[in-house]
């Protein structure tokens, strides 16, 4: 698509090896020179290219154009617009849509927010990892909204948020509340997830699987509930080490190819089992999404794929530009990249720890355990083990973990 000579680009924070011809210098002489070497390698821009062709295709704009929010958008228009942007961000993995969503919600003052806008804002905040402010938005809707549907959506979103953060007591309370106000597969999935992460994943799996079968026999469940339950079953089966995980996830991926979360779970499962060709198939065309691109890069590296080097370089540049920006929305992906591609164990451990402070899903926990093992950090490793023990959590995917 883009074909001009690529000039080597500088790196942002790390100075790479060949920049210094070093062994001839010793001790303080080296230091004197090192102190004077300018940082030409940091953040050096690529050259400006002026001789691009008129016919050359330089960029492809996304088909979904962000509508610029109109000045006098009604609340309902704003709600629909905001929801569209958040869904676009989720299904494309493209954070620019989060930026457009943030612009839209910034135009709404606190007192004019509707319940639905507040729930949507919480979802946006969760995507931006502003968990505490997301939580307070949701709690407010749960406690004071007169709109039943928004209360249910807020409850579900909050249960999910607590689950992601590993606050299982709080998650369970919300799941139970959901069970009484909105009984069905969604609430059952919610409770099964908590049970799996705090006690017995196999039991949780069997119960939820029979609830799903029952519900399908009784009346065809709506596809959102069914697919959500299939996704949950996949997650719990994987935690219990059951091969059924792939069956459930595959159903979801087939029905909703843009469910990036389930696609990544499935790709990860195959990666761990060395099914590299299947990883490549699942991640093909999704290189723009960090999580999937990193899984793809690891598979390519392990199978000595000829495209491995190029993908690694691209990811490296992407993560360097992201870390210049400062806000790491993807500490987990970068940590995994550092651990499995770059062999930078200390850096991986630092990022995995940072990520675990806010997100404690099984793959976050596994990454921290693996990083701590790779970096020989007994303290960090023990800390995670203690936490798992306290929660009663066991997971077939955790390395060398015995309860």
């Amino acid at each position: 698509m883009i074909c001009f000579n690529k000039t080597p680009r500088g790196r942002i924070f790390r100075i790479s090896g060949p920049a210094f011809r070093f062994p001839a210098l010793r001790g303080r002489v080296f230091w004197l020179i090192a102190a004077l070497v300018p940082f030409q390698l940091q953040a050096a821009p690529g050259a400006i290219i002026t001789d691009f062709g008129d016919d050359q295709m330089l960029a492809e704009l996304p088909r979904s154009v962000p509508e610029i929010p109109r000045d006098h958008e009604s609340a309902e228009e704003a709600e629909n617009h905001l929801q569209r942007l958040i869904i676009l961000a989720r299904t494309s993995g493209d954070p620019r849509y989060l930026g457009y969503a943030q612009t839209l919600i910034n135009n709404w003052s606190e007192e004019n927010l509707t319940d639905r806008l507040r729930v949507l804002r919480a979802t946006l905040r969760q995507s931006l990892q502003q968990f505490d402010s997301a939580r307070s938005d949701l709690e407010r809707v749960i406690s004071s909204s007169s709109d039943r549907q928004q209360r249910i959506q807020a409850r579900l979103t909050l249960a999910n948020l607590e689950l992601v953060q590993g606050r299982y007591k709080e998650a369970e309370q919300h799941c139970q509340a959901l069970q009484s106000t909105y009984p069905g597969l969604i609430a059952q999935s919610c409770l099964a997830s908590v049970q799996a992460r705090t006690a017995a994943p196999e039991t949780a799996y069997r119960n939820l699987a029979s609830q799903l079968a029952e519900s399908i026999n009784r009346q065809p469940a709506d596809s959102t509930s069914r697919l959500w339950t299939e996704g949950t079953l996949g997650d719990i089966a994987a935690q219990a080490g059951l091969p059924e995980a792939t069956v459930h996830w595959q159903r979801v991926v087939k029905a909703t190819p843009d469910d990036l979360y389930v696609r990544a779970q499935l790709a990860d499962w195959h990666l761990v089992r060395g099914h590299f060709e299947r990883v490549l198939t699942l991640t093909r065309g999704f290189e723009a999404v960090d999580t999937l691109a990193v899984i793809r890069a690891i598979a390519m590296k392990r199978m000595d794929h000829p495209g491995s080097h190029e993908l690694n370089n691209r990811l490296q540049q992407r993560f360097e530009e992201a870390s210049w920006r400062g806000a790491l929305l993807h500490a987990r992906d970068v940590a995994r990249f550092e651990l499995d591609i770059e062999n930078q164990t200390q850096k991986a451990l630092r990022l995995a720890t940072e990520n675990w402070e806010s997100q404690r899903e099984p793959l976050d926990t596994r990454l921290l355990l693996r990083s701590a093992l790779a970096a020989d950090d007994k303290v960090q490793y023990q800390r995670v083990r203690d936490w798992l023990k306290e929660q009663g959590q066991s997971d077939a995917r955790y390395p060398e973990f015995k309860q």
Partner: protein
Amino acid sequence: MTVTRKIWLALLTVGLLTASGMAAGHKASDSFLYLDSGPTELRIDVALRDLSLLTNIDSNGNRQISGQELRQARPEITRTVESALTFSNGSGNCDLAGRKWGISEHSDGVYSAARYAIHCPDGEPPRALQYNLLFEQDALHRGLVSLDYDGQKRLTVLGPDSRTLDLAGIDTPGYFGVFTTFVYEGVIHLLIGLDHILFLLVLVIPATLSTAKTQASSGQSRALRGRLLELAGIITAFTVAHSITLALAALDIVSLPIAWVETVIALSIGLAALNVAWPILGRKTWKLAFGFGLVHGFGFASVLGDLTSGVSGLAVALAGFNLGVELGQLALLVVGFPVLYYLGKNRMYQKGAVPVMLAGIGAISLFWVVQRAPLF
């Protein structure tokens, strides 16, 4: 963006945004501003995708931007970008004179790239920059700025809540600030790092012990001079060695597992202590100091690595940290050596205190080895 799981209860059909030839990755919206030469020059890169929100660069509306379309839109693009930038100093606002225009590539695709000379009314460099591009369209847009002048390089970020940048460079520590901070960190690390101190102590002990030869053949002052020379040799060897490996590790040229480094450091203390009594590694203490100094350098580097994340100016930080370690070392010797030298005249010191110290240090070292060995 890390993928996490979310759900809507309302049934929604979403148009699939599949990846047709997505070579580049997704990234939040950023522009790149590089300021240099005083700063009297600016290079600014803005993503074509972001420009499509502000200008009519897709004139045929086919969602693709060709080289021709971009060339046609050039006046509109440069006008838009220039009007979002205000450079100023005491004499007023400054003008931007275009030097070069074209495209560049970043991790999420092609950018429009332009280079400008900045001319202020008084001919001096600008002292402030105000940046107002794209914030109305994308609240998460950022201007990533690289400043490279006045002998320092720093990276900073402009956002909707921080649109102005002081170009005088007083808002972040420059080279000098980084340097002094890391000199301090170096001193502190040496002084609180008991393992390095014990290793130094063991290296110094032989130089405080009177040998029969020095006692018989020469006077007091000559003996002292000889010992100081010996001491200087040992310390220099240790310094040179750990400087080398600290640099190798800090610059990411060599990377060793830290747990093993820490274990070998612990072991080095015990071996050095053993060597004083039974010279299994030879009597040339400076060689021992050099060899184990290499390992200690990796130990220093692990601390430095924790401190420098996000610091621009790694070489300065390194130099400062190293100097700090040397100063700490020197301070210890200035205080410690005269005491030991004085004690060295006493037979009780040679026959009693030294063996007890060596045994104690050896025991601590073995304890650390067991504690640190990464065998779980």
